[in-house]
């Protein structure tokens, strides 16, 4: 499949902001599952943009806006073609649970087996995982069982959580959006030693189109496989990956700091359009306004916060 993706984030500050430093993770990489044909990033006010690769090989754009400004626009356009990764049969026996630890050692999965900013491994999570797996002895089937469990255990509820919601609160409240589904699923997998990482990207379906989050698990000899706990299915060619990390904290679409007011509005628009030969068909548009208000004085502050709302667009 071939897609054109437009992702536009704009901030309006109620009083001028300055000294804004930003890292943007919006450029999808070319990997076996997808080829990026073109990518462009537009920032207003106009500034020079630098690009680097982070520790997890994600592509990051960095820019600074020192001057006083009332609004900030970040707009990316991607043209990408995806390939259908052959789905694995659900009853395949790929790696016995007792062996999952072996290859993990050599394959540098350390980071994806630990607690991280939004994922905590504790006895309660481990118990949930053990019960969900039951008597399954294969790691692949165990992972599918954990995904199914996450899907049933949590209720998809837009705006029920925010971008900094920790996995343990999601487990307690049993609702959330795709980011929370991914975090819970990651926690369950890691607690039974299945390496799991967080993926941010886009999902093009007929009903919704927005940024999405899912999970990749690692199986010895097979490698990383993408599973989407929000939909209880394996990722297919409708998924476009932007990047991965230990959890959301490693791959926020926009992060940084600025001097100025916390009172600002943010709007996000994502359009994923399927490209078919010459004709272009537009699936859908998602956009939303969110308002944050605070009486706190001007301070250094993260500007990534409302991104979660955007992720919440995906309907389960």
């Amino acid at each position, binding site marked *: 499949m071939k897609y054109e993706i437009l992702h536009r984030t704009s901030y309006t500050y109620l009083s001028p902001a300055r*000294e804004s430093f930003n890292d943007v993770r919006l450029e999808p990489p070319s990997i076996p599952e997808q080829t990026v044909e073109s990518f462009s990033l537009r920032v207003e006010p106009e500034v020079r943009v630098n690009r680097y690769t982070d*520790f997890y090989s994600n592509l990051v754009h960095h820019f*600074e806006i020192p001057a006083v400004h009332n609004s900030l626009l970040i707009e990316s356009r991607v043209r990408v073609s995806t390939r259908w990764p052959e789905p694995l049969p659900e009853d395949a026996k790929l790696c016995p649970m007792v062996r999952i630890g072996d290859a993990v050692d050599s394959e540098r999965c350390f980071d994806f087996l630990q607690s991280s900013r939004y994922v905590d491994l504790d006895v309660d999570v481990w118990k949930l995982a053990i019960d969900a797996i039951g008597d399954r002895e294969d790691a692949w089937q165990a992972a599918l069982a954990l995904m199914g469990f996450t899907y049933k255990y949590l209720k998809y509820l837009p705006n029920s959580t925010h971008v900094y919601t920790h996995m343990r609160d999601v487990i307690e409240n049993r609702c959330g959006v795709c980011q929370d589904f991914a975090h819970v699923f990651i926690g369950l997998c890691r607690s039974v030693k299945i390496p799991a990482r967080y993926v941010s990207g886009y999902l093009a379906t007929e009903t919704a189109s927005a940024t999405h989050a899912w999970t990749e698990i690692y199986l010895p000899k097979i490698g990383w496989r993408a599973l989407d706990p929000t939909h209880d299915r394996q990722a297919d060619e409708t998924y476009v990956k932007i990047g991965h990390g230990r959890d959301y904290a490693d791959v926020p679409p926009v992060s940084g*700091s600025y001097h100025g007011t916390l009172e600002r509005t943010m709007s996000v628009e994502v359009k994923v359009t399927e490209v078919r030969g010459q004709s272009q068909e537009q699936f859908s548009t998602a956009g939303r306004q969110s308002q944050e208000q605070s009486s706190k004085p001007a301070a*250094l*502050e993260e500007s990534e916060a409302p991104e979660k709302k955007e992720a919440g667009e995906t309907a389960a």
Partner: protein
Amino acid sequence: MLKNYRTNGGYDEMLDGKTGIRAHYRKFNKLFGSLKPSDFNAKRQAVDKAFLRQGITFNVYGDAAGAEKIFPFDLLPRIIPANEWEHLERGLTQRITALNLFLHDIYHEQKILKDRVIPEFYVLSGRHFRREFVNFNVPKGIYIHVCGTDLIRDKDGNYLVLEDNGRCPSGVSYVLENRRAMKRAFPGMFEGIGVRPVETYPQELLKSLKFLAPAGVADPTVVLLTPGAYNSAYFEHTYLARQMGIEIVEGRDLFVRDQRVFMRTTKGLQPVHVIYRRIDDDFIDPMVFRKDSMLGVPGLVHAYRAGNVSLANSIGTGIADDKVMYYFVPRMIKYYLNQEPILPNVPTYLASEEADRKYILEHLPQLVVKAANESGGYGMLMGPKAGRDEIEKFRKQIIAEPRNYIAQPMICLSQHPTYCNGKFEGRHVDLRPYILSGEKICIIPGGLTRVALRKGSLVVNSSQGGGSKDTWVLY
């Protein structure tokens, strides 16, 4: 003066149980012994007053009785003979070389991990391992530019390494000020005895900092970045900046434009090329590390990444400070240099290794337990001196978080005659030499001798009731 002085077990720096005063102390003893008690007292008081007047102080965190204290100074110098010093120099040079190679390796190919010389787990789980800087080439390939390595001596007088401070080691200003005070108090003594000078340190430091300047900058601007007046080492920051003739700045004095760092001055903006930062990684750039930091400079890390500004020490050296990494330094020396360590470690147990943990938990009352990422004597259990409650508290912490703890046998530090309560008594000492890595490695002769002023105490940290002595290295 040492008439009633008794050595009481442990190695005494000045006295040998059999032959009396050690050879390298004899000249000093002769000159010092001719001093009348009243003269000695006058000198002592003069020195104390001078320290107070000059504001040579440090802060104690969590002390309600007032933050700033003078660092108590003892007039009796610790003397190191030339042959011992050369041994130390060789050992420290070897160690810093291995540490810098190690840091370069774990932030690049990670050969030492792939070859399983050090388990990957310990590095990747290190609180101060900076993933953000993997594959980043630091200026001139040097990570630790200023290192303070703590040395102690066991009961046979062998020097052992207690820990490496590869982030922002402090204390060197006391080395310089102690020497100044001693020269004033005993003007004639130095030449007669032949003591190596330490006064060149600020110039050597500046030289190593300038060496780091980004390519193409002929006359680099170097600044010292301090967290501010409430930091425990603020005196030292101002002192070193003054001695080097460079600006001392806080985060708010600097800003980043187009990935270049500038300093606000009364004469307008001035580009900055090298930052001697006395502020931890966590606080250096709120954009990348701690978001709540008001001490750092937003965008600094990206300027560093772009190669437009150099930092000393580099970002990410904290992993070498990790007390668990300390355990592996002898292996690093073998791996990278194919040499035997010249200065051995203190025997150490890692709580994350099952056999070691078992041993630690069974022998807590005999061991010294240290948290892997604390310094200044905080987060430490002295088993033999601790109460039952404290031991149990540590037991729980070790079981909950084994990666975060190491244990060592209690080493009886060497002792040195020290003036206490109107007479000379033995007090335990350690030694922190300062190692500079620039174009070449440079160690100022001696270092900071810290002394535990409480009788029998083995904790020399200034925050825990320690004092200091001038350290003389002889020609």
